[in-house]
């Protein structure tokens, strides 16, 4: 079942043609109305008219987050204020906040994009969707809300918080679809279980649409089992739109990008050259229909790959794989790109190992040395040295096969790995010549 069958299953060739037409409009629109693009295009020696094919986009310059900060507040708006229907803003915890505006048409397209995901988890106008994302400047709440309204669902705007009441409503109002962050979905599931419910059996909920933060596969599986639901991973970022830029269908093998609305590229984070489908690199978006804040080649810093293979769900829009990390976090070890999240992924597969870990990078001569410091869980029977050695060997073997690099495992005392209130320091790079 599709929300917009004509668009979602459009033959690839027709879709590329649509993308090119819309891209030509969008790039021209940006150029005509935003000073930033006029000067950045000029600097790169390109003009909107140079865009004759989708491949030509590669000669256009990028937009980065800092450009948006510099343009604060309205520098990247391409429409007069009377046409701005809503303004969202990023939190600005890591610097100057960025604001993004939407016209009424932008908001409608946004609702449609998210609505496709509601159909992906089996929803329809018959469904009740509970939106437990925060409402406000954050795009999660209102984005999911717009999706629910576009489909014609009954929308319950609970927002986040007051978990027990959430659960009561979920049960009493017969929520079919829950939209929130993965960590909040897990908290809801665990709290419901604590309250004596078995949400998988007692609740009607059959689908979840979760995003805005990373979730490991084991966490996803945990949520699926505890709530008894189909899991739809939703990707989005406020700079580009909000949740709904890409959504995961029932095939659970990647997220369909709304390709009628966005053009996705993967570029090599070092050379910034586009990479062929299937290769991992930085995700770059060009908006195709946005009126208020058109973006030409926005570097997301998110690392993924494009899955171009036909999908069993019948949708023709290409998919992106799960986000494996951020280019800011990427480590280059012996020439191999490694993300801390990949290491974490391996560690969660070992119940004997505690979640805290630290990676120490050193280099003796030309070769990098990677040491992974881990702790055993408190009740691990470490008395038998043979078992500890065997555990180390198994972990090293698993890392080797996942990351293609040899890692020395060091089991350490619990006090060794620094605990921190906020973000833990996972990487200690002591390599010469690599410190920024």
């Amino acid at each position, binding site marked *: 079942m599709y929300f917009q069958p004509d668009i979602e299953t459009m033959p690839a060739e027709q879709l590329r043609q649509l993308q090119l037409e819309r891209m030509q409009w969008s790039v021209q629109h940006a150029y005509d109305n935003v000073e930033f693009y006029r000067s950045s295009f000029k600097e790169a020696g390109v003009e909107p008219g140079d865009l004759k094919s989708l491949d030509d986009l590669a000669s256009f310059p990028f937009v980065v987050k800092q450009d948006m900060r510099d343009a604060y507040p309205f520098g990247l708006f391409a429409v007069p204020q009377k046409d701005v229907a809503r303004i969202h803003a990023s939190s600005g915890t890591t610097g100057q906040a960025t604001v993004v505006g939407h016209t009424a048409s932008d908001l409608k397209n946004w609702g449609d994009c998210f609505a496709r995901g509601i159909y992906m988890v089996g929803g329809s106008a018959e469904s009740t969707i509970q939106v437990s994302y925060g409402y406000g400047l954050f795009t999660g709440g209102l984005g999911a809300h717009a999706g629910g309204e576009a489909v014609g669902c009954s929308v319950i705007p609970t927002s986040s918080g007051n978990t027990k009441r959430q659960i009561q409503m979920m049960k009493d109002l017969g929520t079919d679809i829950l939209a929130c962050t993965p960590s909040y979905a897990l908290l809801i599931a665990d709290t419901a279980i604590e309250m004596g419910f078995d949400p998988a059996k007692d609740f009607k909920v059959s689908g979840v649409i979760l995003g805005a933060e990373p979730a490991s596969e084991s966490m996803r599986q945990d949520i699926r089992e505890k709530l008894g639901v189909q899991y739809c991973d939703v990707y989005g970022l406020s700079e580009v739109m909000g949740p709904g830029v890409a959504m995961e269908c029932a095939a659970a093998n990647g997220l369909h990008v709304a390709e009628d609305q966005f053009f996705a590229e993967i570029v090599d984070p070092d050379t910034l050259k586009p990479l062929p489908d299937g290769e991992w690199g930085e995700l770059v978006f060009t908006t195709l229909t946005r009126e208020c804040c058109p973006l030409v080649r926005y570097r997301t810093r998110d690392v993924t790959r494009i899955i171009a293979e036909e999908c069993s769900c019948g949708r023709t829009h290409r998919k992106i794989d799960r986000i494996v990390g951020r280019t800011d976090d990427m480590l280059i070890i012996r020439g191999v790109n490694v993300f801390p999240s990949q290491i974490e992924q391996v560690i969660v597969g070992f119940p004997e190992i505690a979640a805290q870990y630290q990676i120490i990078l050193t280099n003796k001569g030309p070769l990098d040395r990677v040491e992974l410091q881990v702790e055993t869980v408190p009740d691990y029977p470490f008395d038998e040295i043979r078992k500890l050695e065997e555990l180390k060997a198994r972990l090293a073997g698993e890392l080797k096969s996942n990351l293609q690099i040899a890692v020395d495992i060091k*089991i350490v005392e619990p006090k060794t790995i620094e605990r921190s209130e906020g973000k833990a320091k996972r990487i200690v790079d002591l390599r010469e010549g690599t410190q920024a």
Partner: protein
Amino acid sequence: MISQLTVFLENEKGRLASACRAIADSGINMSALFLADTADFGVARIFCDTPEAAVEALRDAGYRATLTPVLGVRVPNRPGGLADLLEFFNEHDVNIEYGYCFSVNQEYAIDVLKVSDHSIEDALEDAGFTPVAPEEIYHVD
């Protein structure tokens, strides 16, 4: 079976000393300590007055500490005391993970063994050996 205190130690200067200090500060006396070491960590196996309290004290001090059930056997302090015991295990197909012995006095020694099959303790007694009860070694707390 008796409870042995096991402490995980990084191969780092002063870690054993500070573990012993943590035990001492809780007023716990040790009667035996054995170290096993590998390239990057060591494991200290300890007999002390109150193993449960020692585990608490060490955990509070940030150590990984645990109690491990081991078999203690009192053997006569003469040539062949240990050999007789090991032959008995061999005959009963019981594997030994690790072991150590300490002489208590002129009369007897205690052999401590981590065995694969805990149920061997009863058979030992039937065969005339003398397994050590917890209260002979430490205060049961």
